[in-house]
């Protein structure tokens, strides 16, 4: 065999490498610097933490969400710090508790001058950003800083409609006749991620689903109408919406059963769109390098405490679904993490994953160590806040939730409570006057005062 010259050897190596890359035998990023991941955050509305097929729901089928759980890390102890749409949304965007970002209820406006979202830091890190979907924060819809594509809606006070919901596309109001909103928003999301660019993307996809008044698409309408609902809480009844002040959530004569089935059908519609989006990532070959985070703004009561809604510190209201799928940055995908994850953790986590500069005013903590299985938890407790949201019949409340107990204080005449969240998730036995409660109370008071900067409303 003839001896090769140095030039011939280099030339042949180059040709082989080029050929292997073209043939797909070598990962495209092998020679590239550490790639920044694409980011997709998907936010549902009022979705309960246990409303995923893989959580053992009696009939709900959610192959899309189940796939995320199978391929990612499922945070089964995830919570919102305020169980209400606008404050929780602002917490996701800013990484702050409601008392810090100022959107305390569905009426107090978002301050676009003061509040900085994670989009700013992500943009500085070289991303192109899109916010698509429900903004629903009080006040005029702002021009969000550092967002290249902004699609939202203002119909029905920002809640939008399931059908024919006009969209505001980069500031231009556009009619969407015949469109089902979950599908319409997903179409725009897919369009955004398919845009050719040498920059990574960050997409915030925020759905109307599954907020009331629930309307599934026509082909899913009625798919659960024959399902047995005997698993709903003991205290629920069909006309629970007739209780004082409850019909805002669904006027009579619509029954709770009817609403609940529609809720599940609308959720199935969302799941179908999620699956479509995930398939699109597969087709584009970017699944491995895309961090997909799924969460809901708050949970929802379907009969628990004789309530249909979300406005208090009940477990079903404060627990949220929270799943992160990031194949390239996750150790042991398909596992459950018991560490407490909060809505305020989203911003620091995304900044951490993207390599962007941290946001200095964050109350949240990055969950990256949990994704990488380096830690079991990042905190032991958190602050729950619910500010008065007129005219809803719920007193203002502040609480501290630890791994084992919740301490809740109320504005007005209602007495404070301590509940064992593991033995008594329905909060039926107030321990505050018991020896156990008396033992726990001082530490709970101290934590609450610490979180609230000295204030303690406990009585």
């Amino acid at each position, binding site marked *: 065999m003839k001896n090769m010259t140095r030039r011939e050897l280099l030339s042949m190596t180059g040709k082989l490498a080029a050929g292997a890359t073209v043939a797909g035998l070598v990962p495209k990023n092998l020679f590239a610097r550490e790639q920044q991941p694409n980011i997709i955050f998907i936010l549902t509305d009022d979705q309960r933490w246990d409303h995923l097929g893989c959580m053992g729901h009696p009939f709900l089928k959610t192959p899309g969400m189940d796939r995320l759980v199978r391929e990612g890390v499922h945070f089964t102890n995830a919570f919102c710090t305020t169980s209400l749409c606008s404050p929780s949304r602002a917490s996701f965007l800013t990484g702050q508790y409601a008392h810090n970002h100022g959107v305390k209820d569905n009426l107090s406006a978002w301050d676009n001058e003061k509040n900085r979202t994670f989009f700013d830091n992500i943009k500085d890190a070289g991303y192109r950003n899109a916010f698509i979907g429900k903004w629903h924060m009080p006040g005029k819809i702002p021009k969000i800083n550092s967002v290249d594509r902004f699609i939202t809606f203002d119909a029905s006070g920002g809640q939008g409609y399931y059908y024919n919901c006009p969209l505001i596309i980069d500031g231009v109001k556009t009619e969407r006749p015949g469109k089902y909103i979950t599908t319409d928003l997903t179409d725009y999301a897919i369009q955004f991620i398919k845009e050719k660019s040498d920059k990574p993307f960050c997409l915030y996809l925020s759905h109307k689903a599954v907020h009331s008044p629930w309307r599934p698409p026509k082909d899913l309408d009625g798919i659960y109408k024959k399902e047995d609902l005997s698993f709903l809480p003991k205290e629920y009844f069909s006309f629970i919406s007739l209780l004082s002040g409850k019909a805002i959530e669904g*006027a009579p004569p619509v029954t709770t059963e009817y609403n609940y089935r529609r809720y599940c059908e609308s959720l199935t519609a969302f799941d179908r769109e999620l699956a479509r989006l995930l398939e699109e990532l597969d087709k584009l070959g970017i699944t491995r390098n895309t961090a997909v985070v799924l969460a809901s703004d708050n949970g929802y009561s379907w009969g628990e405490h004789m309530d249909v809604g979300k406005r208090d510190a009940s477990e079903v209201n404060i627990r949220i679904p929270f799943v992160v799928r990031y194949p390239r940055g996750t150790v042991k995908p398909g596992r459950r993490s018991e560490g407490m994850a909060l809505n305020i953790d989203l911003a620091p986590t995304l900044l951490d994953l993207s390599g962007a500069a941290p946001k200095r005013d964050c109350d949240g903590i990055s969950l990256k160590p949990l994704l990488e299985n380096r830690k079991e938890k990042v905190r032991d407790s958190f602050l729950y806040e619910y500010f008065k949201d007129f005219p809803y019949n719920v007193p203002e409340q502040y609480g501290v939730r630890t791994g084992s107990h919740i301490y809740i204080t109320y504005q007005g005449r209602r007495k404070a409570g301590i509940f064992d969240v593991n033995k008594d998730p329905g909060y039926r036995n107030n321990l505050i006057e018991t020896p156990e409660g008396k033992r726990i109370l001082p530490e709970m008071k101290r934590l609450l005062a610490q979180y609230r900067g000295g204030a303690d409303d406990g009585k």
Partner: protein
Amino acid sequence: MENKYRQIEKASFLKRFILPAGTALLGWLALHFISENLGWIENRGIYKFAMNTVHVALFFYLAFNGFFVYRAMLMRGAGLAERIAGSYVTPLAYAVKEIIRVSEFFTIGESFFYCLCTYPVLGMFVGQAGLMALSEMLCRKYYKKRNLYDGNAVTAGPLAVLIVSMTAIYFFFIYDAGGTAFFVYSELYKLIFK
């Protein structure tokens, strides 16, 4: 206002006002008391049945109170002002109960403004007006058939009240499932209290 009903004797105040309005009020209080005290029922099926029955009865009782009280008072010779006032006794009592209840966490001003919320109070008040107008026209028709009423059964006044009332109910509860009405109410709240 000229009384066009013939042969309807004006009963005493006790019979034409206190009795119909008071009976309606007592009925509501009884239903309300029952609805608050069914938690002891252990059997889930019985509990659900009882809760559904009582709450639906309560809803219809409050929603249609005006229709029946108005008619009962008219048949006892009560004048228009008395009929309207009597029909609003139970809804007013309900409003007061609600104001007291929500004053636990709202200011006094907010607690009163709460009653302007489409559900449950304002909707009920507006609905009562329409039902009273309907009741008036049906009574006229009933008496006219028996040659005991001199005018037309359907006249501009009650018809207008009925149309306005039904339009409001549509806007409050049916159009956008009440979402737009609630948004308007919230904006009003912000204007006044924020």
